């Protein structure tokens, strides 16, 4: 049915749009503001995908430079942040392809696993499981646990649950359907939960740092 819907919040301009307009008008300092606003998120996403600190540094630079070069192409019908994340995801995947020369790398890698689709370890967690570990130990557990997820699950979890994109934005960013994002998100959440249970179960948890693959 061809009805014309008013665009939600048409009169409310996102602050990023005003900054983009200023950059287009030649005000480079406005781009400085955009970089500072999103650099941590872009660096984090790049680290999650490439799993390499130097690659993440390169991706962060390249993503912001590419976004600057392509700013005229930014339509404003998606958020600037979502548009930027899409560039960063593509740059990260390109970086992985370079590192694994000749091997295709995609977000569909390794998703044909049944692991985690049904919870097996049903032990409850301690009330505040983080308290059993130092900040450094906890960060190591969280890193190794999420690194063990298949790429296609990890990226969906990071964009959707860590970086706060909606399901639709995650689908658009990754070129996936909404049902595919939902299916991967559920399995990512369940696999992470299962793996973290090894550290956080309510009986005396294992303190050794030998983290599973």
């Amino acid at each position, binding site marked *: 049915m061809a009805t014309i819907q008013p665009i939600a919040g048409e009169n409310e301009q996102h602050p990023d749009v005003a900054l983009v307009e200023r950059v287009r008008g030649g005000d480079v300092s406005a781009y*400085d503001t955009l970089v500072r606003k999103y650099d941590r998120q872009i660096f984090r996403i790049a680290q999650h995908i490439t799993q390499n600190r130097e690659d993440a540094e390169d991706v962060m630079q390249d993503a912001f430079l590419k976004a600057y070069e392509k700013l005229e192409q930014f339509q404003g019908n998606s958020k600037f942040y979502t548009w930027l994340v899409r560039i960063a995801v593509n740059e990260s995947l390109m970086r992985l392809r370079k590192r694994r020369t000749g091997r295709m790398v995609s977000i569909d890698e390794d998703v044909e696993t049944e692991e985690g689709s049904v919870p097996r370890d049903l032990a409850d967690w301690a009330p505040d499981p983080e308290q059993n570990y130092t900040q450094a130990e906890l960060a190591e557990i969280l890193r190794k646990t999420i690194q063990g997820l298949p790429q296609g699950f990890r990226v969906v979890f990071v964009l959707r649950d860590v970086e706060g994109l909606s399901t639709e934005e995650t689908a658009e960013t990754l070129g996936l359907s909404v049902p595919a994002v939902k299916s991967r998100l559920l399995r990512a959440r369940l696999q992470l939960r299962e793996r973290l249970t090894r550290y956080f179960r309510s009986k005396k948890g294992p303190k050794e740092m030998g983290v599973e693959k």
Partner: protein
Amino acid sequence: MTCTEFLAQLDDLLDDAVTTEMRADLREHLRGCEHCEVTLNTTRKTIEIYRSHEIYALPTDLRERLHAAIMARCKKGC
């Protein structure tokens, strides 16, 4: 409701995207199923813990260095 049916709704429940009617059915299932209650609570905690802990921090000195490099290139027109 079976555990499989409950799991199929888990994400929507966590994201607060279920109808009132569905929520009532899910609560009813949880009353009699400790396994699903544990799964729900620990999955919720999994998300919270990843949201609240910065595992790939960008150190200030690195941030400033990358920032300077980006802006220098932008000022030159990339």
